[in-house]
């Protein structure tokens, strides 16, 4: 059955092996990205959004592994592919742009060598000259003059480097681009240009783009749909309009309230960040319940499903679901 989804992840889980045991970085997450749309994936640092982005390309390496789930990419389950088949998917069908353009290009390779290598890895029949011509064409479309091709990465500005990363992601006409915090290290003006470029590419080439970021303002501006992650789980997903106007999950509500101070908020609230022992024993059931202003008894006992609340607007919160009967009447006093 043909559908509009370029990629659809089903019940995807990723675990990291630490000294303290297996840590769930991504837990039972499902999402889909459609052709011609930008899906913004937001959440605090350490919530698993980057891991999810890598998991979609099966770029998760030891000591982490994908423990469960399916990744449907145009009708093929990527989880069933061999390592080599998966490798051929990367770069050809899915492109990725990374957080720091300073460090995501090989410092001792010229820009053009990156492009030629990528093109010829996937299309070995292409001659060096043809690959060179395609590389020139590619960067030209992205507003970099072809005479910068022989430069080394350190000779380019941050914005240019990030455009080189896009050209690499698009070198083989990928259908899906995963931009992992791709604007974090750019200054505001370059960021605006970069985001505009992404939007334009998304329209012109009918791409699906997953934009992973902690910048809520950016997502509000460019994303068609928004997904919110908390502690490795999907908290809420819906059209940008719905999520920003009527956030359902208490976490999203808090997040939106905190927008002006979002960086301060991270420092104050996020205990789990960077300390695996905390993720080894996350709060039971709904992981947000210790911080939730609407906490109910059921929240610490049973994990709510991630399901439709209104139309295409999904959330994992008991406020919008029927609480199981045995928890409905539990009150403070009746426990004794």
């Amino acid at each position: 059955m043909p559908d509009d989804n370029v990629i659809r992840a089903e019940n995807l889980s990723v675990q990291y092996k630490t000294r303290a045991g297996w840590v769930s970085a991504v837990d039972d997450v499902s999402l889909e990205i459609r052709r011609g749309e930008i899906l913004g994936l937001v959440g605090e640092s350490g919530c698993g959004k980057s891991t999810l982005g890598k998991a979609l390309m099966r770029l998760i390496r030891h000591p982490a592994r994908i423990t469960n789930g399916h990744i449907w990419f145009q009708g093929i389950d990527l989880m069933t592919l061999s390592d080599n088949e998966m490798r051929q998917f990367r770069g050809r069908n899915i492109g990725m742009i990374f957080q720091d353009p300073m460090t995501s290009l090989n410092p001792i390779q010229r820009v053009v060598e990156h492009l030629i290598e990528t093109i010829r890895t996937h299309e070995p029949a292409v001659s060096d000259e043809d690959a060179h011509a395609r590389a020139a064409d590619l960067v030209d479309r992205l507003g970099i003059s072809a005479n910068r091709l022989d430069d080394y990465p350190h000779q380019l500005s941050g914005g240019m480097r990030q455009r080189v990363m896009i050209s690499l992601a698009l070198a083989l006409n990928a259908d899906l681009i995963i931009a992992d915090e791709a604007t974090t290290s750019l200054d505001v003006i370059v960021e605006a240009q970069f985001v505009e470029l992404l939007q334009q590419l998304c329209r012109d080439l009918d791409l699906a783009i997953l934009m992973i970021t902690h910048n809520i303002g950016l997502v509000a501006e460019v994303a068609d749909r928004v997904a919110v992650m908390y502690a490795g789980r999907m908290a809420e997903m819906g059209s940008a309009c719905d999520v920003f106007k009527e956030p359902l999950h208490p976490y999203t509500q808090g997040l939106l309230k905190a927008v002006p101070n979002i960086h301060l908020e991270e420092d104050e609230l996020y205990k789990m960040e960077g300390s695996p022992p905390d993720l080894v024993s996350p709060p039971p059931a709904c992981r947000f319940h210790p911080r939730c202003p609407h906490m109910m008894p059921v929240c610490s006992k049973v994990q709510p499903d991630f399901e439709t609340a209104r139309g295409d607007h999904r959330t994992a919160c008991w406020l919008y679901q029927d609480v199981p009967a045995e928890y409905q009447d539990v009150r403070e006093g009746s426990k004794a």
Partner: protein
Amino acid sequence: MTVSPLAGVCFSSLGVALLFLLYAFLRGSKGLRSYIVTRVLLTLPMVLILVTIIFFVMRVIPGDPVTSELGPRASEAVREQMREQLGLNQPIWVQYFQYLSGIVRLDLGTSLIFGNRPIVDELSERLPATLELIIPSAALAIGLGVLAGTFAAEHRKQWPDYLLRLFSVVVYSIPVFWLGLIFQVTLGLGLGIFPIAGRIDPIIDISLQRHTNILIIDSLISGNWPALLSALHYLVLPTLTLALILVGVFIRLSRINVIETLVQDYITAARARGILERVVVYRHALSNALIPVVTLIGLQFSVLLAGAVLTETTFSWPGMGQYLVQRIGQRDYTAVQSAITVFAMSVAVISMITDIIYAFLDPRVQY
């Protein structure tokens, strides 16, 4: 004056260095070119300072060539005659400039103990022997060290990694002469597979015409295959000994550098573009990890020379190291001074070349 073998060796090694410099100069950017010129020019004062230090240190260390040559009971007249003969009666700055001009003219004086044999002639037998020993040893140590280090990094925290790490610590801690003796006793005397002393079978040696005194090259030039085989046969144990001393450092350094590069973003980015894992490790990671290793090669060169002194002594290898040790014992001042000068200059040239290789490999180096 005919070109002595020493000059031949000096010029051919300098020729190889110059070829590399020319290549880097032509391939490189404008910045790299001016860097090469600057670095080469900077080597000249460095060499000058080195030979100056050698000259004055040789004059202030206790002992006196005249006394050591003639003995304490020689009469003053004989001493004076000897001083005159050696030029030691002249003012120190005159001696200094004679020494400098001697180096430029490749005339290092004559040996104090072996009649009037020119030092240059002695060195033209000794230096090629040392080159023949250290070049294959260094190549072996660097080649194997880098490959093994990369292999260990690839299999980090698995048994090949643990084995290689253990191996590198063990060989690094073993004294050269002990390792040499063990090889001599086991592979040499015990199993009788390899000869334990000398450079070539003495009988075959008679048939070999010398050009450069590097026996492998000489036998190749004259097409003397038995000589080539014999030279290689004699080379095995000393080379193995010297290479093992160095290989540990290269294994450990390559390993840690490859591990560090493998977690870099551009490695993940290369994987995300579907680049083959083999290419990711051996092209992207290794070429970046090699940059600090190149620097180490320059630094380890002096260790290599020190190791060569011990290896040559152990295997009666008639090279520079053995020469230096013998002549120090015999208080042959001109010989010692000349040998040290050759060592110092080769260290200066090697460090210049590694610096330029470094700049050539890493486009980020600011000139």
